[in-house]
């Protein structure tokens, strides 16, 4: 009799635990990762590929190499049974190099080009290489460097062709554009800094989780290999 009562109590306790477990899973269905996890490389030191779980909802991603940031993104994440779903829905698109042109015409047989080169904060850039295609020169290009005010002045013979320009400066992405050699131009070129990376937006990545532990998790890659993402320690 006594043994039967004890058995009943044990069964009831197990039922309560199962019920509590079910309730916990219903109320807290999401697994949680905190801090930054970086992909473990066989030979580390050249790249970093890291996910930071900022809250129980938001993440940031950054992939870097020797030349700075390659790609990055922000968004929302969630865990399902064995998947980590990264929704890049909060990344801001990045502004790229661009130019503004003012043109005028006259009856001269030459055109006058004034090219102002600036960074995105509007600071003039000195010593910028402003090069353009020139079939008459040795290497097929001619060019001038911008002065201390960030200005390059060029006079060319007027004709009906387009002229291809390439604006390059250390620390900035090369900017290319073409202009009509029929007109005079006053151009402002805004150069984008190098190494800021490409933003990822409106992309959903699904990582197949193999193992998840407080200090690391592993995922199955598309090629079938297992990649480990290890928690970045301070």
């Amino acid at each position, binding site marked *: 009799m006594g043994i039967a009562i004890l058995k009943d109590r044990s069964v009831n306790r197990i039922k309560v635990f199962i019920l509590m477990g079910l309730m916990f899973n219903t109320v807290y269905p999401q697994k949680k990762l905190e801090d*930054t996890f*970086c*992909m473990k*490389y*066989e*030979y*580390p*030191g*050249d*790249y*970093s*590929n*890291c996910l930071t779980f900022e809250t129980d909802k938001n993440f940031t991603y*950054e992939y*870097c*190499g*020797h*030349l*700075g940031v*390659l790609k990055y993104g922000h968004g929302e994440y969630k865990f399902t049974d064995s998947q980590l779903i990264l929704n890049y829905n909060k990344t801001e698109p990045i502004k790229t190099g661009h130019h503004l042109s003012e043109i005028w015409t006259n009856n001269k047989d030459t055109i006058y080009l004034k090219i102002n080169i600036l960074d995105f904060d509007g600071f003039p850039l*000195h*010593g910028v*290489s402003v*090069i353009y295609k020139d079939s008459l020169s*040795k*290497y097929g*290009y001619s*060019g*001038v*460097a911008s002065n201390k005010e960030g200005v390059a002045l060029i006079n060319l013979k007027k004709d009906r062709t387009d002229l291809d320009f390439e604006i*390059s*400066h*250390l*620390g*900035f*992405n*090369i900017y290319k554009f073409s202009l009509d050699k029929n007109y005079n131009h006053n151009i402002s070129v805004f150069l984008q*800094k*190098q*190494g800021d990376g490409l933003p990822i937006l409106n992309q959903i990545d699904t990582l197949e989780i193999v193992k998840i532990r407080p200090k690391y998790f592993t995922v199955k*890659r*598309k*090629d079938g*290999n297992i*990649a480990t993402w290890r928690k*970045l320690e301070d």
Partner: protein
Amino acid sequence: MQNPIPNVSFTFSESILKLFNDSDTFNLTIANGHLKGANGSTKGASITISNDYLKKATDLSIARTMIHETVHAYLNVRYTQVLSFEDGFDFKLKMEKFAIDNGIANINSNKFHHEFMGQYVDAMAASLLIWDEKYGSRTNLGWEYYRSMAFGGLNYEDSAGNQIDTNSFKALVPNKSDRDKIKNLLINEQNGNSNSKGSKCK
């Protein structure tokens, strides 16, 4: 650009430092900073060396990383500051031809820089050897050791996330097991473990 002082010769890395030192147009900056996984990073001619790496690496490893990153800065300056060099267009067109010949779309990419850098391996090794004799161990660890160190970073990642040895690394060291030995040697110096030959910075 100033002409080199007669009878004074520089190593490749010293020549790069001189190039920046003599220029009124472009500057080289070197700083330490927080990088999540890479030992070093170079944007334009701004080099950042990882704090975590500086804590654990040997001085020899740090010197080889500094040399490697200054070569990135050198390639960046040669490709962008075309008008600052007498052979500016010639060098730029050679870089573009190298990219086309090797099927590389973007010259400002890890893949291009690390493939192109294969041509400088011996120059980087000699720079490291002379640095080590002057400022490091003040001994000579043997040419092959410095040459192995100069291969550091000569890889890129494919779209699946695999680290691939550059073709230039494969051409110079065709045997995979030899390349793996070099990579392990680099890791030893990077981690400053008991198999490293360099010393930890004090």
